[in-house]
């Protein structure tokens, strides 16, 4: 009968997907992105569930401890032990367990990395978009502000931040951990001193985009400025933004190591991957386990984020040549 044949035709026709569904599908097919996602999920597990590994006997206190107390338990008689059954990643200069410290340190490093990157990309993208779209004196003012910020060395800001604001910012309690105000300062300073690069790139991109036909078309149709900026220009400038964001997270984590190297890092006995690397600096040859584990974790984080970034860029770019 004719009806049944029509039904068959309809059911065998391809269902067209919405753009976001298309993006998700492309992302899932991207092999490296999946590897990256896997890495990041493993890392997230490591720093959250990994706390179960942080327990043991702390001789100076004379009792079993677990959690962050174990990560900070220092027994100088156990200093610089190479990896063993009791301490799978070895011990550091004052006898603290490195495995536990990488778990707790990872929490802080990733917090710093992600927060600083989000801040720098958001700020940079916003400023770049507005500057490029409006042009004229707005562009001028914003870019001159960017130049002024570029000339302020972040070493100064770090010193000043460490000096004046460490005591003024109270300790924050995040997911059960007490973080000194120092962490916020580092995030803010890294964010404030890195947005200029993102802004320049976004601005450069949008400057060429705004002359495109679809932008004039939108304007002719009466679209508001913010609709054009966020609805048309932003999505088309996604690729460099994503690359900046991924490089930004890695950069922020490495900046934190640099900040620790200058002596202005996270205060107190709190571990971060960055200050663990800094503590390993003088023991490069004699105690490689001091830098190997935090370094490898940083590497995996950078790899994971960058692969995901690749996948995101390919998935979100409507002109991408990758076939589904």
């Amino acid at each position: 009968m004719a009806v049944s044949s029509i039904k068959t035709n309809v059911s065998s026709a391809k269902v067209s997907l919405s753009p976001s569904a298309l993006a998700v599908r492309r992302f899932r097919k991207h092999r490296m992105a999946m590897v990256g996602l896997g890495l990041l999920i493993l890392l997230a597990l490591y720093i959250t569930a990994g706390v179960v590994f942080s327990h043991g006997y702390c001789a100076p206190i004379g009792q079993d401890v677990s959690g962050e107390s174990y990560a900070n338990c220092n027994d100088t008689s156990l200093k610089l032990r190479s990896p063993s059954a009791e301490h799978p990643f070895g011990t550091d200069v004052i006898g603290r367990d490195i495995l536990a410290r990488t778990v707790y340190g990872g929490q802080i490093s990733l917090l710093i990395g992600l927060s600083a990157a989000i801040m720098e990309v958001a700020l940079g993208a916003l400023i770049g978009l507005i500057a490029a779209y409006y042009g004229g004196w707005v562009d001028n003012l914003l870019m001159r502000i960017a130049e002024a910020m570029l000339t302020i060395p972040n070493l100064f800001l770090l010193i000043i931040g460490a000096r004046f604001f460490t005591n003024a910012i109270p300790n924050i309690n995040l997911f059960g951990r007490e973080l000194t105000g120092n962490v916020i300062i580092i995030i803010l300073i890294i964010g404030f001193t890195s947005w200029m690069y993102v802004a320049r790139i976004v601005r450069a991109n949008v400057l060429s985009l705004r002359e495109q036909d679809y932008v004039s078309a939108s304007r002719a149709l009466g679209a508001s400025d913010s609709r054009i900026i966020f609805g048309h220009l932003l999505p088309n400038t996604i690729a460099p933004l994503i690359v900046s964001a991924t490089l930004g997270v890695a950069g922020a984590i490495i900046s934190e190591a640099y900040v620790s190297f200058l002596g202005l890092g996270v205060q107190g006995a709190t571990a971060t991957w960055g200050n663990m690397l800094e503590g390993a600096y003088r023991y490069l040859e004699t105690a490689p386990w001091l830098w190997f584990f935090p370094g490898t974790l940083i590497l995996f984080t950078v790899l994971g984020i960058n692969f995901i970034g690749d996948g995101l860029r390919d998935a979100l770019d409507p002109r991408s040549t990758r076939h589904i």
Partner: protein
Amino acid sequence: MKYNKLYILLSLAVIASMALAACGAAPATEVPATEPPAATEPPATEPSVATEPPAATEPPAAEPSGIATITFTQEPDSLSPMYTSMWFSSITRQFWNQGLWTFDDKNGAVPILAAEIPTVENGGVSADGKTLTIKLREDAKWSDGEPFTANDLVFTYNMILSDKNTVNSTYPYADYVASVEAVDDHTAVVKFNEPFAPWLTSIFVSDILPEHVLQPVFDAEGTLDNAEWNKAPTVGTGPFMFSEWESGSHLIFKANPNWFVQPKLEEVFIRFVPDDAAQEAAILAGDTDIGVFLSSDQIEKLEATGNVKVPSVSSGYAETWFLNVNPETAHPAMLDVNVRKAIALATDRFSIVNDLLLESVNPVPATVWVGTPPYNHPNLEPYPYDPEQAKELLDAAGWIDSNGDGTRDKEGVELVLRYVTTTRELRKNVQAVVQQQWAAVGIGAELRNFTGDIFFGGYAAGGPMAIGDYDVAEYSNAPTGFPDPEASSNWLCSEIVSADNPEGGNWQGYCNPELDALLIEQASTVDLNKRIEQYQQIQQIMYDDVVVIMLWSDPDLWSLNDRLQGVRFSGAMPFWNSAEWFVEP
């Protein structure tokens, strides 16, 4: 075809790099076979015994040859003794601007430009201790051949006191010296206002300016601030003379032909290497003969190379906890001597030294004067590690943990002390260890770290110690006049820092009239035995009142490559015998 090209390029690259590397090998040098100058005798009873001046007249067996390389971790501000008190600057003066006398490796005084060390016996020191008569060597010459005379001493004195010169320090000339006169070309008389005990380590020890070079400059420009000599002091008094100073890179001194002892080395090359780990790599690779300011955990690794030694030399430094007892700024618990005692008993400094340093190099001392014998108290032992007794003392003082949070408290105030220090890795580690040790007896610690310039900043700049925003401050300190024990400004009542007295040196706010009297008295006690006795009393008072807590002795750790021989480091003047250094062939 293209593989051939690649192959050739590759081999060229390899050959080129090998050629470059081969150029880098240090050339071998001849070693002249002369006797070292007459050795100095160890002091019998006094620390300042006169000894033979170095033998002067033997002609050298061979031309000076060889280069000694030294790494400095900081660049001197200036080479002029007037414009800097920096250690890295003053030690270079042992090469090119030696003074009346120097201090050997046993901290005994050795006359250089003076003919002999002035004492009461030889009439150099007057009976009332207020006049110093210094006889100078007759054959002493500046490196340009001009004779060295007493007029140079007078000129130096006048320049330091002139308000046209922005000198770094006028100590001790402004406050303690009444006059400096040249009786004749080779005799100078220094008169003090009061008998001045630390004269041996502070009067013209190595800061003499050449009058014949700088007087014309002063006359022409009205000041010595911009003199060429400050940057390139080509005229000096020492076995070596200044040759070159490239900012940020290096300093070069070459052998001085006009010195009465012929140096064996041709050149001393000082390179500025600010990074500790890079200095270590340079020592391991043999790129430097002498390295400075090592720490005890590097000793094993360096000596394992087989051709590097790590001599340790006391220069009076000891890592110390300065306790804030100023009632306006300190934690109320700090004002109680029993709490301070409990802090000392609760800290296991011994295992810190054993595990993080080396007990043989950095033992735990009892008092500040551990590095300046014979002033060191012979009987006092450092407070032992006794956490139980610490707990008892704290209980008795009323500090108990009433709210069960792990830290003691009293009248609503938690016993959490501000423990501040610099950003050095070792200190941060010690902070973490101490925090844990204190937690075991119920004392909480808030750890803070500051970079050096902020940490040591004055009251006006808001330095944490100066404004009193601390309870326990840790850093390495020595008596300023080493090997003289003078260190009073730290504890005099009149030196307490405050808004009215922002430049005061007493940052602990400690005031004890009995101690004050002794500190003032010892500064003018010229009789050695009497002064030793006064210091014993001073140390007993400070020990009983727990004014400071000593962590470890902090001698200077040098690295010495076997290639450079004849080096004997001194605590006060490390390079005092540079004329005797020679390089192995």
